Structure formats: structure tokens, C-alpha cells
């Protein structure tokens, strides 16, 4: 009896999450329908390949951001990490045209890992609230990018063809960038589903004190989340350098807004504790589709900025509403259960 009830509560929660992803899907359908009618060239293969390229980088960085947000923290410095590692990638490849790409990608991820580690240590050892810590490192890492680039910009013609092909080639009709993102998404989803240390992210985000009492090394786990986010932002930087023709010190400025919008729209709770990779992917596709549609409708670049912000507010409101309803429903069930037990005891 008891077990059945608990199962019920769990399935209720699962249903709510599915509902959230379903909501994003419905919104995506509406957006596609709207732009297909209003904008010419929207439903062409070329256009969708373009959208896929935009989505790819957001997804890779967004999965890292998700890990951080799951632990009830936030990383505002991702765009600066993307920019810095994009320049390191382009700079290395411009100097060594025949460098193996895997090594360069690892180098970019290494840069991101170090920067993410700094964020993580500031938050855990330094006990600086994540919002302040990463607001500061956002400026610091961007300043570092200016130091490293020294005002220089690296254009695509200095980069080797095999690198530019990462963005240009389309095996099986899907851009290579999107294949990379797909791989990261599968690995990320598997990690968040099965890896014990990643399951701890959910526990920490749901209730940090309870997680600590339950014996989870919360500090270490939060550092890992920030390191993962940094490494994935580094990979995002590698992809950024191949996607955009010119890389300089201001590359990817404000990109964190795209990432956070996708993550929040994808149903990741800003208070931590819940969220899924599938949601993030759907959120990224939705954001990219709408922004692409805006471009095709010749709307100003700035409406996109407005839309990003508006979408964050709406998504946060909807998430809060769903969470609230879910908690209410669970509480009501628990109350009914307690009452039933009391009743039974009284009869006995």
C-alpha cells in the first residue's frame, strides 16, 4: 500500500517533468508553424542546417551550465570562457597549421577546466556566492582575453581547412558541429542519469544541508560541476572558433544569455535539483528556431535580446508555477496518507 503510494508520487513527478518537455515541444511546433507561414526560406534544409550549428554550441555549453544550476549555483562566466578558449584555439591553429585537432580541442578544454576550477574553488573554498564570484570572473576572464589577444583578431584564412570543415562539413546531412553536440548530449545525459557523483548534483540542489548530512561531499561535487561547465565551455570555444570566421577578444560576448535562456526554457529549475539534458536540447532548439525566424523576418538584432530576456522571465515563472503545483499535490497526498494511517490506528 505504502509502496504503491510512493510509486504514485514518483510517477506524478515524472509526469510533471515530461509535461514540461512536452510544453517546450508544443511551443516549438507553434514557432515552426508560425515562421513557416510568415517567412520564406524557413523550411529549407540549408536553413535547418544553420539552426543546427547555432544549437550545437548552445547545447554543449548549456549542458555544463545545467550541471552548475542543478547544484543551486550559477555560472555567468561561460561566455568569457568560450571567448578565451576560442582565441586560444584559433591562435594555436594559426601558428601550427598541422596540429592534430583532437589535441587542440583538449587544449581548449584544458583552458576551460582551469577557469572552471577557479570558479568552483571561489564558490566552495572561498565561500563567495556563485552569482558574485562568476560576475567577477566574467570580467576577469574577459580582461585576460584582452591580455592574451593583445588587440589582435584571427581571421579564417589563417586557419587550416580541416578545422574550418568542422563547421562546414555535413556528414549524413547534419553539420559536424551538431554531431559533436549530439555526442556530448548523450554522454551528458548518461552521466546525469547514472554516474553517482552526478546524481549528487540533484541531491545538493534539492537541499544542500540534507545532502551534507547524508554524507555527500558537497564542496567537492560543486567544484566538479563548475569544472565540467568550464571544460564544456572550453569545447564550446573550440567549436566557436570553427563556426565564426573571426576570433578576437570580444568573441562570444553576452553568449551566456543565450545559454541560460536555453537552459531555463528547457525546464532546469533555477533553484537547483531538477532538470534534464533532453530539456536543454529542446530549449536550445526552441531559442535558435525563434531567433532564426526573427532574422528571416528582418527583425532587428535587438528584438532577439529582448526576446531572450522575456523568455527567461516567462520560463522561470512557468517553472515556479509547475514546481509549486507539484509540491502542493505531493503535500496533499502525504496529508491524506497520514490521515489514513491515523484512522487505521484509531480503529485498531
Amino acid at each position, binding site marked *: 500500500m505504502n509502496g504503491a503510494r510512493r510509486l504514485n508520487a514518483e510517477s506524478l513527478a515524472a509526469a510533471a517533468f515530461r509535461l514540461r518537455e512536452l510544453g517546450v515541444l508544443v511551443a516549438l511546433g507553434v514557432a515552426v508553424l508560425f515562421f513557416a507561414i510568415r517567412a520564406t526560406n524557413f523550411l529549407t534544409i540549408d536553413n535547418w542546417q544553420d539552426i543546427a550549428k547555432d544549437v550545437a554550441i548552445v547545447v554543449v555549453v548549456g549542458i555544463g551550465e545545467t550541471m552548475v544550476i542543478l547544484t543551486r549555483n550559477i555560472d555567468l562566466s561561460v561566455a568569457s570562457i568560450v571567448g578565451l578558449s576560442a582565441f586560444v584555439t584559433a591562435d594555436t591553429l594559426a601558428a601550427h597549421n598541422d596540429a592534430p585537432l583532437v589535441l587542440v580541442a583538449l587544449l581548449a578544454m584544458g583552458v576551460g577546466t582551469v577557469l572552471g576550477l577557479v570558479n568552483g574553488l*571561489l564558490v566552495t573554498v572561498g565561500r563567495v556566492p556563485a552569482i*558574485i564570484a562568476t560576475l567577477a*570572473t566574467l*570580467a576577469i576572464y574577459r*580582461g585576460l582575453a*584582452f591580455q592574451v589577444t593583445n588587440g589582435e583578431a584571427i581571421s579564417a584564412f589563417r586557419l587550416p581547412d580541416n578545422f574550418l570543415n568542422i563547421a562546414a562539413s555535413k556528414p549524413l546531412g547534419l553539420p559536424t558541429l551538431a554531431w559533436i553536440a549530439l555526442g556530448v548530449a548523450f554522454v551528458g545525459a548518461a552521466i546525469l542519469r547514472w554516474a553517482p557523483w552526478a546524481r549528487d548534483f540533484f541531491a545538493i540542489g534539492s537541499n544542500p544541508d540534507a545532502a551534507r548530512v547524508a554524507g555527500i561531499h558537497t564542496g567537492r561535487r560543486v567544484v566538479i560541476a563548475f569544472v565540467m561547465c568550464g571544460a564544456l565551455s572550453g569545447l564550446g570555444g573550440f567549436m566557436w572558433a570553427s563556426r565564426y570566421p573571426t576570433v578576437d577578444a570580444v568573441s562570444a560576448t553576452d553568449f551566456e544569455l543565450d545559454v541560460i535562456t536555453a537552459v531555463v526554457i528547457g525546464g532546469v529549475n533555477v533553484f537547483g535539483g531538477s532538470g534534464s539534458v533532453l530539456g536543454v536540447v529542446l530549449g536550445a532548439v526552441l531559442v535558435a528556431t525563434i531567433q532564426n525566424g526573427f532574422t528571416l523576418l528582418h527583425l532587428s538584432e535587438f528584438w532577439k535580446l529582448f526576446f*531572450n530576456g522575456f523568455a*527567461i522571465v516567462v520560463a522561470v515563472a512557468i517553472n515556479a508555477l509547475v514546481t509549486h503545483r507539484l509540491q502542493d499535490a505531493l503535500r496533499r497526498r502525504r496529508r491524506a496518507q497520514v490521515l489514513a494511517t491515523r484512522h487505521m490506528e484509531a480503529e485498531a
Partner: protein
Amino acid sequence: MRTALLFVGRLLARWEVLLVIAIVGVGIWSATLSPFFFVRANLLDLLTPYAFIGLMAFGLAFVVIAGEIDISVASILAVSVVCFSQFYDAGLNVWLALVAGLAVATGLGCINGVLVGIFDLPSLAITLGTLAAYQGLAYVILPGEGVAAFPESVTKFGGGYVHIELPIALLVLISFAVVLGFVLHATRFGRYLYTIGSNREAARFAGIPVARVRVTVFALSGFMAGIAGVVYVGYFGSARADAGQGSLLDVVTAVVLGGVDIFGGSGSMLGVFLALVLVAELRNGMQLANIAGDTQNIVIGVLLLTAIVLGNLTRAIQARGLPSIPRRKGVIGNATASAGLAIEPETEVKGR
């Protein structure tokens, strides 16, 4: 002797005193860089370019003391500045345009306030969203070139002088610091903020109109961003959609370095003002030393982080027990308290 030492120790433990020492130190460093630093005109003018940052920081301090955060202030400044210029361009009387700009700023702050205070949504995520939304709005209202050529009667608030040397922006800044300091430290509304910031549930049970106060505090923050916009337009002589962009770091640094607890419940107007002086002086000194703006950001960012980490460290050491100095709630952040390191109960709600 022992009491004297205790007194000195307690004095040094006050954040404002540490800030004054830092200000003197940076002043001496700046004086070695340029013989023109310690000139009365330069010292008086030191804060003029940062007055708009200070005005935003004052508003943000109220929000942070109440336990929330508002990172959309710079975007509100942009919208308000752009609206002001558009109203003026459309032929409205310049003072009416100014009031309309302030009303827009207050309205945008109100939107934040309603979303956070009434709908109970997290202020960090909401103001991150409105940061982007308002910035986009500013660009949509005034794309491309900015508007210049405002009458001197308005621009004097940012760029004018009394008796040749005394900047009006400094007077505006100090008057708002005094008035807001009074509101924060000597009115019931101010005490409400500390109570709500310390413990929102307790404040509700104590009969404080929590929702109303939270909406008001965000509206105030928006209004101050509007005032900052007026000074901004006066100082730069033009209104553009990217006004105030990149100033968020300085605003947050002034508030947090000023000793306002980022988790709410403590902080003082004097501290924020002193921190603003320190930031302005540091940037001025770095300009004298020919350090580029983006490198300056590294220094300011590191300063912000160091202040918090040092504050936390001091508290951790104090928590292990230096018996002579009475332990107080920390300078920045109450992370140790939430980590269960704070042993004593918090009995007082106070602003230092």
C-alpha cells in the same frame, strides 16, 4: 592598556575603517604616479565620472539589504536615458521629459518588484532576464546613433560645476547618500528592510507588509537607475542605447565591497559610499598608470573577490575563538553561518 588595545582592535574590525585605510593607501599610490593627483580640483572631480555608478549602487544596496539582487539596473538606466532623449526629441519640455524618463525607470523597477515580491520568483533569474529584455528594449527604442545637444539646465547635473571647482554631480551624489542613508538607518521602512533581509518568514509573522516593501525596494532601485541616467546624460552629453553597459561590475563591487551582506540583513550607506570612493580612486590611479580599461576590470574583479574571501576568512578565524573581540555577524556574506560554523545565535538585527 588592554582596553585601549581592545578599542583599537574593535575599531580596525569595523569595515568602514578598513575602507578608509584602503582609500588613503590607494591615494598615496596615486600621488606617486602623478603630481596632479593631490590637487584640490582633481580630488573634487574624482567621483564625477563614477557618480552614476554610485547612484545605482545606492539603489542596489537597498535591494541587497532586503535579501534580493537586481542586476538589471544598468539596463534600466539605458532605457530611461533613451526614453528621456526620445521624449525631448519629440518636442516635450525638457523637465517633463526628465520626469517621464524617471517614471519609466521606476516603472521598470516596479515590474521587477511585482515579479519578485508578489509572484515570489527568484530575483537573480528574473533580473537576469530583465537585464537582457530592458537592454534589448533600449536598442529597439533608439537604434543607431545617439541623441546629443541637451540644454545646459539639465546636463549641469552631470557635468556642471559650482564656483568652477565643485562638481554638481558630487553634490547630487552626496545628497542622495544622505537622504537614502536617513531612509535606510532612521526610518521604519529602513528597519523593515533589515528585518526582511535577515529572515523573511519572521518578518511576515512580525506583521511587516513584506510583499509591499519588496516591490517598493525594486521600484526605488529602478528610480535610482533613472536618477543615475540623468547624471549620465549630463556627464557624457549624449544619450545612447548602450549607456551604462559594462558598469554592472563596478555597481556590484561598490555594494559588496561597501560591506553590504550579499545574503541580506546588514550593510550601511556610509560603507557603500566609501567603497565607491575606493573604486573611483583605484580606476583613476590605474588611468594615471596607463592601464587599459579591460585590465582595470581584472583588478576590480579581483578586488571584489578578495574582499569577500578575506571577510569570510576573518569570520572563520573569529569563529574558532579570539575571546577578546566580541564576535559579530560578518562583514560580507553569512556563508559560514549557513555552513553551520557560526556558534553564537544571531540576536540582533542591525545596520552598521
